[in-house]
């Protein structure tokens, strides 16, 4: 057990002695949570800005929203949710010392991430060909800016996944390396988590 871990012991009613709960611990490195919560706060401001502007001009937003392909947005959501599952399972395998299993799962997660980038590229190409761009309307300004910033997160996340995959090629890993794997996984889940709200705002609400 690491220094940061602690076991919560509860006294059973009737004086039956202590009962041990699941150990409480900070997943990954402490510092990743400062970054993740900070990034999530910045995106929360993006979400609120979008909703505020939508409230002032709902009809224009609704019209532009119909230019988006909901099927492509749903496909991308499914790809990111699936990649998150594979990363979570991969980290579990790596923690259990099963590097080969972790390798396969992380490669599959990376494949889903690449799929997201491909679908996003196709979607943006269609929009550009239809004459939509950052400057075409308020809705599309938000759409291209926020999904563009998110796409940059996906690319950084893909690089992090490559690092995890490289780490799983080693036969053994230290406690430090396992913590780094968890940290990389948390970053990737954040990318997924932010997309879930962007999807609801741009593709479903509009």
């Amino acid at each position: 057990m690491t220094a940061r871990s602690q076991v919560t012991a509860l006294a059973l009613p009737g004086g039956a002695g202590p009962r041990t709960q699941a150990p409480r611990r900070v997943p990954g490195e402490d510092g990743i949570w400062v970054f993740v919560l900070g990034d999530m706060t910045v995106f929360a401001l993006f979400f609120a800005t979008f909703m505020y502007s939508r409230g002032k001009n709902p009809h224009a937003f609704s019209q532009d929203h119909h230019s988006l392909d909901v099927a492509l947005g749903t496909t991308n959501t499914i790809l990111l949710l699936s990649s998150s599952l594979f990363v979570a399972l991969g980290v579990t395998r790596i923690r259990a010392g099963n590097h080969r299993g972790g390798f396969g799962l992380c490669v599959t997660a990376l494949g889903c991430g690449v799929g997201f980038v491909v679908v996003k590229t196709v979607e943006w190409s269609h929009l550009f060909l239809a004459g939509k761009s950052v400057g075409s309307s308020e809705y599309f300004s938000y759409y291209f800016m926020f999904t563009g910033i998110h796409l940059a997160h996906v690319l950084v996340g893909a690089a992090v996944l490559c690092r995890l995959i490289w780490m799983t090629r080693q036969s053994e890993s230290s406690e430090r390396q396992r913590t780094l794997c968890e940290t990389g996984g948390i970053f990737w889940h954040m990318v997924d988590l932010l997309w879930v709200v962007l999807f609801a705002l741009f593709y479903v609400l509009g």
Partner: protein
Amino acid sequence: MTSVTTGRRLTMVWLVLLAATCGSSLVGAEFGAGSRSVATIVIAVALFKLRLIGIYFMELRVAPPPLRLLFEGYVLVVFVTLTVLNASVRP
């Protein structure tokens, strides 16, 4: 054994997330988000999904209470903010 149980739990969460995504897409396509109540449901489903990702995939369910509370607080604040802003949409 623990790994199998964890894997099953994660897979169940993933299935719930997929169902919520497809349900949300269908509701949006069928009823549109012009209605405030439908928009509130869409926001609630999105924040519910966000919470599932945090609690299970990011493993915040085993995190110390202060970190877990920060995350839960974030979910609540974002939900309330987006719902209030949605309620202010001009008809």
